[in-house]
């Protein structure tokens, strides 16, 4: 089986893609954001939610044949600590209690700990290519996998996977159209119509856990004003972005929380498109439209610069629409295309007034906490200057019951509405494309990638091809 990955997602996703194939996490996060067992078949909070007990499956072995034991997991977790990537900032100790039990002791409760365990790659120290996943890597360049005969759930029916990368997403789908690959990891929105029409290919659209926000640097003298940010939120017609820029393959966003999250409240207020209200709000904020004094700029209320990811055509088109819509209320946005690596550098240095990048939400609270909390952002280091959500995010981290979590999430939604740190534009709908030579288990709107080990060759299609 050949898999195509375009450059648009390659840098971010290739590693994750490989991890999905060759490594199983300790726990998984289901579609509604709840923690589900994986290598750990059971999780249990002890000691007033200060100790998390993990009970491991007994029939799991690594690709090299070694069994998965509590000692192996403890070594992995301790290595993370040593690499300054502890699963929790409140970690006290990590211990093995028997061959299949791991105890993670904390100095205080941390509800994000189970979700963060989802990101822990369980591999023997010093063996980055050995995991417990359904496939094992046999070659890095070109990236090639073979089925793990000892996979604890069931041996995959696909024997081998070869991964091809392309300069652009369009290049990848062109290869798919030519029949050079069986699976296209991401179908570009421009191509989705044509790929869907191809009878030899099935496409599987899904709601990705990524949204596009226009994030403000609250150190900007104007953008730090909450009424301005509210006005900017009201000035944006999110549905038109979905329609014009995304060929309808997205949904409007009203916040950073995963729309399917089990604790999210549908009763919370959201911003509706109302440019007149935005103008009134800006007028009331003392930001009238000032006529242009020279030929270099438009009559405007104020101006700011927004960085956006230049390597993916979608963002330029979204930027154009946002620019136009804000122009309609007298706000002059200079949209500045920046390559991804340079953009990330400037984000880390807070060298921006606003930026627009795809942002992961995860399906639980962890990613939201990491992105929007001013402190304790391991590896992120973003400085937006936004502190309003910190208290409720801290509170959410302390609670572990469903009721408390629901109340906390509702409060977080309220804070993000009242004091928006960004204009949350759209959620991305992505699509995978698979040759009809394969039968793919599929639930509507969900990502088929996590089921790759269950894909089977379609005997009828194979016969027809022969």
């Amino acid at each position, binding site marked *: 089986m050949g898999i195509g990955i375009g450059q648009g997602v390659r840098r971010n996703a290739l590693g994750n893609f490989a991890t999905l194939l060759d490594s199983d996490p300790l726990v998984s996060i289901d579609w509604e954001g709840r923690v589900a067992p994986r290598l750990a078949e059971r999780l249990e909070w002890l000691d007033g939610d200060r100790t998390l007990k993990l009970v491991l499956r007994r029939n799991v072995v690594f690709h090299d044949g070694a069994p998965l034991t509590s000692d192996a997991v403890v070594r992995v977790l301790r290595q993370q600590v040593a690499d300054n990537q502890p699963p929790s900032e409140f970690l006290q100790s990590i211990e093995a209690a028997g061959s299949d039990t791991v105890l993670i002791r904390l100095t205080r409760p941390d509800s994000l700990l189970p979700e963060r365990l989802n990101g822990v790659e369980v591999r023997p120290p010093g063996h980055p290519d050995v995991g417990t996943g359904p496939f094992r890597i046999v070659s890095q360049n070109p990236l090639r996998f073979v089925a793990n005969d000892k996979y604890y759930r069931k041996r995959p029916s696909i024997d081998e996977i070869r991964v091809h990368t392309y300069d652009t997403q369009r*290049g990848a789908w062109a290869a798919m159209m030519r029949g050079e690959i069986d699976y296209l990891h991401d179908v570009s929105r421009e191509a989705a119509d044509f790929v869907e029409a*191809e009878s030899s290919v099935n496409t599987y659209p899904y709601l990705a856990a990524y949204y596009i926000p226009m994030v403000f640097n609250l150190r900007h003298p104007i953008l730090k004003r909450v009424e301005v940010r509210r006005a900017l939120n009201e000035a944006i017609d999110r549905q038109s972005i979905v329609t014009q820029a995304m060929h309808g393959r997205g949904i409007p966003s009203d916040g950073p929380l995963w729309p399917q999250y089990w604790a999210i409240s549908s009763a919370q207020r959201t911003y509706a498109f109302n440019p007149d209200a935005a103008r009134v709000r800006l007028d009331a904020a003392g930001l009238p439209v000032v006529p242009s004094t020279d030929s270099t700029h438009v009559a405007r209320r104020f101006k700011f610069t927004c960085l956006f990811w230049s390597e993916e055509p979608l963002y*330029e088109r979204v930027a154009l629409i946002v620019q*136009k819509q804000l122009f309609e209320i007298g706000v002059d946005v200079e*949209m500045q295309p920046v390559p991804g690596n340079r953009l990330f550098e400037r984000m880390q240095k807070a060298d921006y007034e606003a930026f627009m990048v795809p942002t992961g939400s995860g399906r639980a609270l962890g990613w939201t906490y990491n992105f929007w909390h001013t402190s304790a952002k391991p590896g992120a280091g973003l400085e937006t200057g936004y502190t309003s959500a910190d208290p409720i995010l801290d509170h959410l981290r302390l609670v572990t019951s469903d009721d408390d979590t629901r109340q906390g999430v509702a409060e977080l939604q309220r804070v993000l509405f009242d004091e928006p740190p960004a204009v949350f534009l759209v959620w991305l709908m992505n699509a995978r494309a698979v040759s009809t030579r394969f039968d793919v288990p599929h639930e509507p709107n969900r990502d088929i990638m996590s089921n790759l080990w269950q894909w089977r060759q379609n005997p009828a299609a194979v016969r027809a091809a022969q």
Partner: protein
Amino acid sequence: MTRITSRFVLLIATAAVAPLVIYGIVSVTSLRQGTQTSVRDGNLRVAGQVAEQIALYIDNNIRVLKSVAAELRGTQLQQWQRERILRDHVLDFPEFREISLLGTGGEVLATSRLGTARMNLPDPRSLSSDPYIAPMRLDDDFLPTTTLAVRLPQLDQSSGWIVGQLSLEELWRVIDRIRVGNRGYALIVGEDGRLIADGAPDEKRMIANPEPHVVTAELTFAAELRQNAETPRVREYKDRNGVSMLGVAARATRPEWIVIVEQPTEEAYATARQFERQLTVAIGLALLGTVVLGYLWGRSFIRRIFALTRVTRSLAEGKFESRVAIKGRDEIRELGDAFNSMADRLVELQEDVRKQERQAMFGRIAAGLVHDLSHPIQNIGNSCKLIMKMSDDAEYRETFRRTVEREMVIVKRVLDDLRNIARPIPLERFAVDVNRTVGDAVEAMQAHAETAGLTLRAELSSDPVFMDGDVFALGRVYRNLILNAIQATAPGGLVVIATEGTRDRVQVKVYDTGCGIAADRLSAIFEDFVTTKRRGLGLGLAISKKIVEQLGGHITVASEVGKGTTFVIEFPRTEARPIALVAG
């Protein structure tokens, strides 16, 4: 002989079936050609419409650029305003990836891009026409694209160009909407022979295919049409999947692309073939009906003729009671009635003939009896009278007694002949020496021959030949034949009786040099009461034939008037010797 049924079938085939078949062939052929021409014309119209749509598509996008140009013509526009106009148009017309404003030297004055212009911008000095349409090319993703440009006059006292990069993926959507039947699609071939758009969902991979050596029947078709405008615009070919396709082509005028509308011939001609089938079935049913009706009608017609034939044969076989019953009110019925009348009349005539024959035969028998018996009876009567007169003369009485006895023998023989005609002749079979029997007969008849003044000669075989027979009956046969020969031969003539033996047959031949028998009477001479003589019952040859056949032989006759007659008798030969010889 050609049977009337065959003639009838031929008649129906010639008069009804053949014209219907010819009509059917002509109709089906005309229908096929007409419908196929209609399909081709329809598809050609579609191809022409697609070509017009392409021109419209390009023209519309040129209008977009002209709209941009019109908005940019104001000389006081600021840079941000120019960029806003360009960006608004890119947003409103997503088929444009970007639109840029070029100065006369090719410098970018403004672009819709948020960064720098990315497309391959043409050098305005090389643009050959206004508007300018660049040849289609493949972009970095091997997808077709083209560049459009329109002149922007008097831009800040200098001219420039509005250049837009047009993604032909949008054209695909236009082409995708073209559908002929269920499986007919349009495709477009660019100036360089590459496929630009293909409405068939599964063939889009061929558009993205960067391999220039992939040559399909469609591309060949387009190339030939491009090279020679006289190339027929309709063609049937097999596509790369081996499916027989009907392809029609049209040339787009701006840009110079070739539009091909192709449809599987199976589907394209489905209606025509359905009509053909329906017409063929209808004609077939008409043919069948004609044949059945013709058969039924012909059978009823011919059956009456057959009935007439059967009765005719029956009548010929002597079944005079046969009659034919023919229904209807036509000439055949009249013929049947006439036939029955004729049969009735024939029976009447037959009865008349029989009556006349019976009367003639009675007359002949009576005359024969009178002839054969009157002389003996006269002699007997005279003898009796003379015996009475000369009763005392014993010698005379003895003479007359012998005369009476002799004549009585004659009378008896005549009566025996009459009796033998009515019943089998009693025969006693013994081995007989044929030469001896014949010799005896010749000797006995020698006196008659001498009286008639002719020669009677026996020519006997050198070897003795034997047969099973009755000496007396055979002697009678030979005497009868010799007597007939003597009576038919003029004085001085010759009568010969010869014998001859083969391996298993005995042959006795009697011939004369007499007057002969006419051919028309020859076949009847062995019948009862048939004679060539003026007198007699005519029983001699009939009885001779009867005796010969009772002895296992047969008798034939050949005669020529004026030359003579030959009777040939054949018997089975036997090796047994006569009893007399065996005894001796």
